[in-house]
């Protein structure tokens, strides 16, 4: 039995679809209680012969509810996490919620716990420009200087590692890059920031660590089902990563016109420092749009390795980047 948390979400539905396609495993989805039919029901309906249990519970759930959800479960794929909101809300959702699941998984003696992390947790600030980010790149020592989502994912992964070290949680961490796909946001922060109806284009020639949602789901299924896999970590990005500039151009030609102002790399630091000065000077009236630390961590022509996922998981990004972008842009164009 495989338990999937967040099975109703964008990535979660694809993971359930791939588990149905590629395995004969029994599947249980932890879904938020709701009188409306869960979104994952649409996926389940396409496999009439397969049985999927939908287990209503919100994280953090009481221990008894989680024990029931984990009854008979050998593998957990933990996708559920807060995506938007303030840092306290995301920590409450993602970290506090996950800890209850880590504890329950240890008690239930699951054989594997696949945590969906984030590629953003790495200490890229201390890397030289143009460096390669891989699984050996350390975690950021200052997650509190990052955006609330990255902060919460950093704390979640750190906590999971503590449970692995101290309580024997059989942890496999999969860190996807930016997940794209139908309806997913594509002009993400790594591309730039939307303000006053315009795009402040910051990415320029930086390669974007995209992974198409079905490719990412494949990697998670590989991590959940691959035999003889110890505690390990895998960064998941697709091949042939596009640059930010290519994405903005393609967005303009395939989706809609977007007015943008390009901020060259040399200007990022000074603009961030001016922003910080204005924020301090106005006691927060002028918000921080992006920090100097952001400039040092995100936009520095990094490249991203997916070799470990390919070699140890046998993962292949089946949907090529060109097709992945086409599908993503098409969904935006028809919105």
């Amino acid at each position, binding site marked *: 039995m495989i338990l999937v948390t967040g099975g109703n979400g964008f990535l979660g539905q694809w993971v359930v679809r791939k588990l149905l396609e590629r395995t004969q495993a029994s599947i249980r989805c932890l879904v938020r209680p709701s009188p409306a039919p869960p979104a994952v029901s649409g996926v389940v309906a396409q496999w009439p012969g397969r049985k999927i249990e939908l287990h209503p519970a919100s994280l953090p759930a009481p221990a008894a509810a989680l024990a029931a959800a984990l009854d008979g479960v050998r593998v957990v794929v933990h996708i559920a996490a807060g995506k938007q*909101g303030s840092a306290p809300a995301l920590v409450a959702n993602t970290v506090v919620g996950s800890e209850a699941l880590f504890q329950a998984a240890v008690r239930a003696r699951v054989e594997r716990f696949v945590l969906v992390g984030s590629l953003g947790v790495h200490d890229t600030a201390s890397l030289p420009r143009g460096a390669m980010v891989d699984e050996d790149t350390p975690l950021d020592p200052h997650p*509190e200087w990052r955006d609330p989502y990255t902060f919460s994912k950093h704390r979640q992964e750190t906590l999971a590692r503590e449970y692995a070290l101290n309580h024997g949680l059989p942890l496999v961490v999969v860190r996807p890059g930016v997940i794209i796909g139908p309806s997913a946001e594509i002009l993400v922060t790594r591309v730039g920031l939307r303000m006053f109806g315009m795009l402040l284009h910051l990415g320029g020639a930086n390669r974007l660590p995209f992974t198409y949602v079905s490719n990412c789901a494949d990697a998670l299924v590989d991590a959940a089902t691959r035999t003889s896999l110890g505690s390990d970590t895998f960064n998941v990005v697709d091949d042939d990563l596009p640059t930010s500039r290519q994405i903005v151009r393609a967005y303009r030609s395939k989706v809609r016109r977007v007015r943008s102002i390009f901020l060259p790399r040399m200007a990022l630091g000074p603009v961030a420092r001016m922003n910080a000065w204005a924020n301090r000077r106005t*006691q*927060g009236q002028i918000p921080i749009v992006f920090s100097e630390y952001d400039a040092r961590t995100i936009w520095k022509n990094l490249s991203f390795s997916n070799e470990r996922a390919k070699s140890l998981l046998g993962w292949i990004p089946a949907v090529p980047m060109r097709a992945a972008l086409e599908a993503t842009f098409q969904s935006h164009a028809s919105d």
Partner: protein
Amino acid sequence: MRIAVVGCGQIADAHIQEARKIEGVEVAAVCDSNIHMAEQAARRFAVPASYTDLARMLSEQRPDIVHITTPPATHLAIAKLAIAQGAHVYVEKPLTLDVLEADELLEFAARQGKLVCVGHNYAFDAPARRVRELLRSGRLGEAVHVDAMMGYDLTGAFGGVIMGDAHHWVHALPGGLPQNNISHPLSLVVPFLGDAAPTVTAVGRRLRQARFGDRRDAWFDEIRVLLHAGSVSAGVTFSCRMRPIQMALAVYGTRQHVFANFESRTLRTVAAADAPGPFRRLQLARRDAVESRREFRGRFWDFLHSRLQYFEGMTELLRQFYSATRGAGPEPIPMSQARLVSWLIDEIFGQCKAAEDKT
């Protein structure tokens, strides 16, 4: 002045940031029953100490003022513990679960010689202060009727968190989410009601679609309240449907009226016109235009002087409260007003519930 914040949820961020804007204030410690919540606040704001044990925090840190930003059901116990350890307390709204608890807290604080301030920060936003100043100056004459309106977005920064979590403490309040928020518009009208206990008529309606099948569907999302106290009446509206959401205050006086918009931080006054016939309309419209121009210039000036802060009212309330704890000024929110708001909340949700039970 050393302060400590107990409860490290979303609103604690604002308390830490706004308190630090006041000269001489040091945020010495944060405390939360969950270690991850305490640590995240300490780490993001570089607060030197974080605790999960309140008693230990109080004895080790000896804060002058404790900010309580925990769920309302815990306010009384935490406040009494903090007061017993020698601290004044600033308590997030609503002050307590009900007026009985409010009485217990206020009496305890009075016996210990400590101050309690409830977080009615909207009443200290510039528009509310300006409206009260207009009344004090005599320009409005006597208040005849006051209206306060609060809109709430269930998909907003706070609403989204609350509606996404069936176990959120807000849903356990007898009146649910409105009970946690209606103190804001109530705190705007209460200063105009005088000392007499008002009569209350309240109606609650549930107009949103039931989506969850749990407590999140249970509470009223539209509340209308009519208050009468002596010769003054007040209306309070809480709505989850209006867009864009607004906080607004209108005071109808015996000489002039004033409309305050908390979003734009602007005021518009209405005085009698003396031009004849249709020229009266033009005269009034011209006054509106002139006042709008003046208000725009004022807000632009405020912007240049960094006064358009989101939690500006909280900073002002904290400044006045901290001064009061040093004996350098009066309590910003008299205890009688804090208690009256507690009593009104009980009365409003009691009436709404009773009406529903009848049907």
